[in-house]
C-alpha cells in the first residue's frame, strides 16, 4: 500500500494597510494614479532622502496584533533587508527582522473537521515595492514607484495548517478580523492581501518536518487551493522517486496551473539584515496598547451573537450581513434610524446584494446612506409608494444616494390615494375590457389580475394594488 503523507502548511500573508499615506513619506497610497505620480525623493530612493515613520501604520499593526492574540513588542525596530531589484528603489527594503512588532499569537478557525487554533509566529511592518511592467516593444521592464512605500504588515503563521481548506479558513478569518478593524480591505484579487504558501510533506506520523518550498503569486482562493494540491503532489512524487525536495521559492502560474522555481545564480538569498540607522526605535507604552485595545471593534462572532439575541432575522441573513463590516454597519445604522431589522435586512440581502453582484462591486462600495434606506422603508410602510416603485427608487438611490422622499416627490411617484380618481380610472378600465369583466363574472377569478394590471398601467404604477383590488371587486 502506498505511504500516507501529511501536508504541513504555514502562511506568510502580506496585507496592505489602509493608511492615506505611505509608510515613510507623505505620498498618497491611492490606487490608479498615472505612473510615478504618487512619488517623492523618499519612495524613489533619491540620494539624501530619509524615511520618517507613519504613526498610523503602528496603530494598525498593534490593532491586528491584539485581534490575533499576539504579544506586542514594546520596544521594536526596523531593519534593512538588502537585495537588488528594480522595483525596490533603495535596493533594500525597510522591514523588521530582529524585533517585529507582534509575536506569538493565534486565531481560531473552523472547518468541516471542527475548530482548531492556528499559531501566529509574528507580524512585522514593512514597505511595499513598486510595480514592474514588461515592455514587449523595447524588450525591457518599466518601473512605476506609486506602490513603493505603501505600508504592509506581514503575518507569519506557524506551520499549523494541514489542508487547503484550513488555509482558506485561516485567510478568511484574517480577512474578517482585519477588515473589521478597518486596517485593510484585504482583497486578494487586487493585491491588498497576498499569501505566500510554505508547504512541506512528511509521512503520516513522522515527527520531523520535511523540506519546505515557498510559493508566491497566489491571487485567489482558487489559485491557493490548486497550488497547494499541485505542490503536495509534486513533493510526494519527488519523495516516492527517492529524490529530495529542494528548499526554494516557486512562482505559481495560474493560467498554466503550474509552479516553477524562481532560482537564479544572482539570487544569493542573503539579505544582510541590520538595524536601519535612519529610523529610531518605536517604544509602545502600556497606555498606547490600552488605547488601541479600547478602540477595537466588536468582531464578527460577537456581532453574530448579538444579532441573534437582538434581531428577529434568520441565521442565514446574520451570516451574510456580518460577512462584511460595511454591510453590518449599514444594517445597524439603518436599524438605529427606523427600528425595522427585518425590513432593513431584506433590502440589504435582496436588492443591495443583487445590485452589488450585477455591478461587480462589494459592500465597501455602497454609497447610499442609512438615513435614505430608512426613508425608503418608511415610504413603503406608509404605503406612500408601492413595492415596484420602491425597487425603482432604490436603484436610483443605490447609484446616486438620492433622498427617496424628495425623489418620489419630484418624480411624482407617490401612490394616488384619491379614491375618486382611482374609481374613475377603474371604471374606464372596466369599460375598455368587457371580455375580462365577463370572464370574472362567469367565475374566472384570475381575470381580476389582468384588470388590476391594466389599472396600474393606467395609473403609471402609482396606485396601491390593495386599494385597486378592493374597488374592482366592489364594482364588479
Amino acid at each position, binding site marked *: 500500500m502506498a505511504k500516507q503523507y501529511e501536508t504541513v502548511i504555514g502562511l506568510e500573508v502580506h496585507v496592505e494597510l489602509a493608511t492615506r499615506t505611505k509608510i515613510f513619506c507623505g505620498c498618497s497610497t491611492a490606487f490608479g494614479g498615472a505612473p510615478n505620480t504618487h512619488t517623492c*525623493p523618499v519612495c*524613489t*530612493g*533619491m*540620494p*539624501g*532622502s*530619509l*524615511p*520618517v*515613520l507613519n504613526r498610523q501604520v503602528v496603530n494598525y499593526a498593534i490593532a491586528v496584533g491584539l485581534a490575533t492574540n499576539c504579544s506586542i513588542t514594546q520596544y521594536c525596530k526596523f531593519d*534593512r533587508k*538588502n537585495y*537588488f531589484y*528594480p522595483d525596490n*528603489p*533603495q*535596493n*533594500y527594503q525597510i522591514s523588521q527582522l530582529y524585533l517585529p512588532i507582534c509575536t506569538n499569537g493565534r486565531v481560531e478557525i473552523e472547518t468541516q473537521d471542527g475548530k482548531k487554533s492556528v499559531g501566529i509566529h509574528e507580524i512585522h511592518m514593512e514597505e511595499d515595492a513598486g510595480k514592474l511592467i514588461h515592455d514587449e516593444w523595447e524588450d525591457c*521592464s518599466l*518601473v512605476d514607484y506609486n506602490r513603493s512605500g505603501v505600508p504592509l504588515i506581514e503575518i507569519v503563521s506557524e506551520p499549523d495548517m494541514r489542508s487547503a481548506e484550513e488555509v482558506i479558513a485561516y485567510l478568511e478569518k484574517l480577512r474578517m478580523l482585519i477588515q473589521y478593524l478597518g486596517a485593510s480591505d484585504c482583497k486578494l484579487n487586487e493585491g491588498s492581501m497576498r499569501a505566500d504558501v510554505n508547504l512541506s510533506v512528511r509521512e503520516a506520523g513522522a515527527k520531523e518536518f520535511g523540506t519546505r518550498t515557498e510559493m508566491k503569486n497566489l491571487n485567489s482562493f482558487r489559485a491557493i487551493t490548486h497550488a497547494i494540491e499541485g505542490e503536495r503532489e509534486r513533493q510526494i512524487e519527488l519523495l516516492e522517486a527517492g529524490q529530495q525536495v529542494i528548499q526554494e521559492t516557486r512562482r505559481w502560474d495560474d493560467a498554466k496551473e503550474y509552479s516553477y522555481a524562481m532560482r*537564479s545564480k*544572482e539570487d544569493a538569498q*542573503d539579505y*544582510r*539584515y*541590520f538595524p536601519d*540607522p*535612519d*529610523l*529610531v526605535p518605536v517604544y509602545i507604552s502600556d497606555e498606547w496598547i490600552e488605547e488601541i485595545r479600547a478602540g477595537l471593534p466588536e468582531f464578527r462572532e460577537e456581532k453574530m451573537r448579538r444579532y441573534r439575541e437582538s434581531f428577529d432575522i434568520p441565521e442565514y441573513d446574520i451570516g451574510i450581513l456580518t460577512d462584511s463590516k460595511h454591510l453590518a454597519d449599514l444594517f445597524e445604522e439603518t436599524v438605529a434610524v427606523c427600528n425595522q431589522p427585518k425590513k432593513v435586512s431584506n433590502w440589504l440581502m435582496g436588492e443591495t446584494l443583487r445590485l452589488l453582484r450585477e455591478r461587480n462591486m462589494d459592500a465597501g462600495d455602497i454609497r447610499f446612506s442609512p438615513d435614505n434606506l430608512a426613508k425608503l422603508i418608511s415610504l413603503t410602510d406608509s404605503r406612500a409608494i408601492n413595492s415596484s416603485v420602491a425597487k425603482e427608487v432604490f436603484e436610483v438611490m443605490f447609484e446616486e444616494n438620492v433622498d427617496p422622499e424628495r425623489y418620489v416627490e419630484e418624480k411624482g411617484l407617490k401612490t394616488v390615494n384619491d379614491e375618486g380618481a382611482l374609481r374613475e380610472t377603474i371604471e374606464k378600465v372596466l369599460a375598455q375590457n368587457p371580455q375580462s369583466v365577463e370572464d370574472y363574472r362567469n367565475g374566472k377569478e384570475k381575470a381580476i389580475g389582468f384588470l388590476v394590471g391594466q389599472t396600474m398601467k393606467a395609473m403609471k404604477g402609482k396606485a396601491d394594488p390593495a386599494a385597486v383590488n378592493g374597488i374592482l371587486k366592489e364594482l364588479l
Partner: protein
Amino acid sequence: MRRKPYGQKGMVVAMDILSYTAAGLAAAIKEGRTTAVEAMEAALARIDTAEKDINAYITVDREGALRAAAAAQEKIERGELTGPLAGVPAAVKDNLCTAGMRTTCASKILENFVPAFSAEAVLNLERAGAVVIGKTNMDEFAMGSTTETSAYGETRNPRNPAHVPGGSSGGSAAAVAAGECFFALGSDTGGSIRQPAGFCGVVGMKPTYGTVSRYGLIAYGSSLDQIGPLARDVTDCAVILEAIASHDGKDSTSVERTDTHFTEALVADVKGMKIGIPRDYFGEGLDPAVKDAVLAAAKRLERNGAVVEEFDLSLVEYAIPTYYTIAAAEASSNLERFDGIKYGYRAAEAGGLHEMYKKTRSEGFGAEVKRRIMLGSFVLSSGYYDAYYLKALKVKAMIKKAFDEAFAKYDVILGPVAPTTAPRLGESLSDPLKMYLGDIYTIAVNLAGLPAISVPCGQDAQGLPIGLQLIADSFQEKKLFRAAYSHETFERMEG
C-alpha cells in the same frame, strides 16, 4: 580679524575683501562697506587664479552665484535679508544635495546627477543669507582621508600643493584656506571635517549627532555622518553652526535642541574649566612636532586658569576597527541605490539586469568605495553578522561609556586631530590600513556622537599646519566653543 590669504595675485580690493571672516564680511556688507556682489566677484577671481593648483571645487556655478549674490544684495538693501551670513559666499561639499546644481559625491556614478531638492543644511544656510558658489571636492562618497579618491582629480593643500589637504572634506578645507570662499560646509563621519581643517590650518567643527539635519546629505555611514562648518575662525564656526542647526521632521535622528545660541559661548575665559588629556592619544605614531604643539596649547590654557589633567580614556585602539565595521556595513547598504536605473551613470547594457548592475557599479565606483562596499557586505553576510557587525555595535557601546566616564570628570578633552601633518600626495592610498590608522583620534568621537572642533595650533618644520582637537560631551558645544575661542584668543595674544 584678518588673516593672510592664499596667493599674492589679484586686485587690492579683492584682497581686502577676501581677508574678511564670514561674520566680518556679513557685518561689512550690512554696513555698506562692501557688497555681496563684490564679495562674490572676489571669491570667483580667487577661484580663477587658485583652482589650477588647488582643485578645491568640482562645480562652480559662476553665473548662478553672481545672480544670487545680486539678489541677496538687493534684499539686504531693502532690509529683507538680515541673517548673520547675509551676502556671504559659501562653498558646499559635493555630498550635500543642491537643487538644480550637480551633486556628484566626487563619484563617476553620479557625474550627471542634478538633485531636485536641497539639503536641509543648505536651505538653512540660504535662510541665513549665505550664497552658494559651488560644490567642493572630496573623497569619493566621503571615503578617504586625503581627497585623492575623487573621480574629479585630487585637491591639493593650499599651504603646500605637494601635500594633500586631508579628507574627506578636503575641497571644503582647501577652499576656505585658499580664500576661494568665506566658509564651507563639510561632513564628518570619522574625522572628515576636523582632519582636513587641521591639515589646511582652518577651523572645522563636527556637531553632536542629530544637531544638523542629515536630510539631503548623501549618506556614507548614517549613524556616524554629521554636517558641520569649516571656517576661518572659531567665531565663524559658531555663527554658521547656529544657522544650520535645526530640528528637522524629515530626519528621524534629528534632535530637538533649545541651546543652539552658540555665539553666546564665545568668551575667552577658561578659569576653572576642567580639561582632560588622554594619555592614549600621545603614544606611538604621534609626530613629535604635533605632540609639542598640542601640549603647548594645553599649557597655554592651563596658564589662563584651566585645570588640565592627564587621564586614560581607554579603548582608543578599538575605535578604528569598530568604525570600519559599522561604517562599511552601513555604506554597503546606503550605496546600493546607485544601480543605473533611477539616476546617475549606467553602463552600456550587456547580458541583462544583473550584468547591468554589476557593470554600472564596477565602472561607476572607485577602488576605495568598492573596497568598503565589499567589506561591509561581508560583515553583514550570513554567518558573520554576529561576529563582526554585532560585536562592533557592542564595542561602540563600550566606547561611549568610556567617554561618559571621562565627561563625568572633564568639561573638555584635548588632543591632536591627527598623528601627523598633511602627508605628501600619493603617499597614502597604497596602504589603506595605514591610511585608516590616521583617523585614530577623530573616529571615536563619531562612534559616541560627540561634538568636536579642530583649531590651528601651530605648524611643523615644513610650515604645515597642526590641528588641536577639543572634544566635549554630547550637546555641550558651548563648552567646546568657549575652550576653542579661548585657545584662539590666547594664542594670538601670547603668540
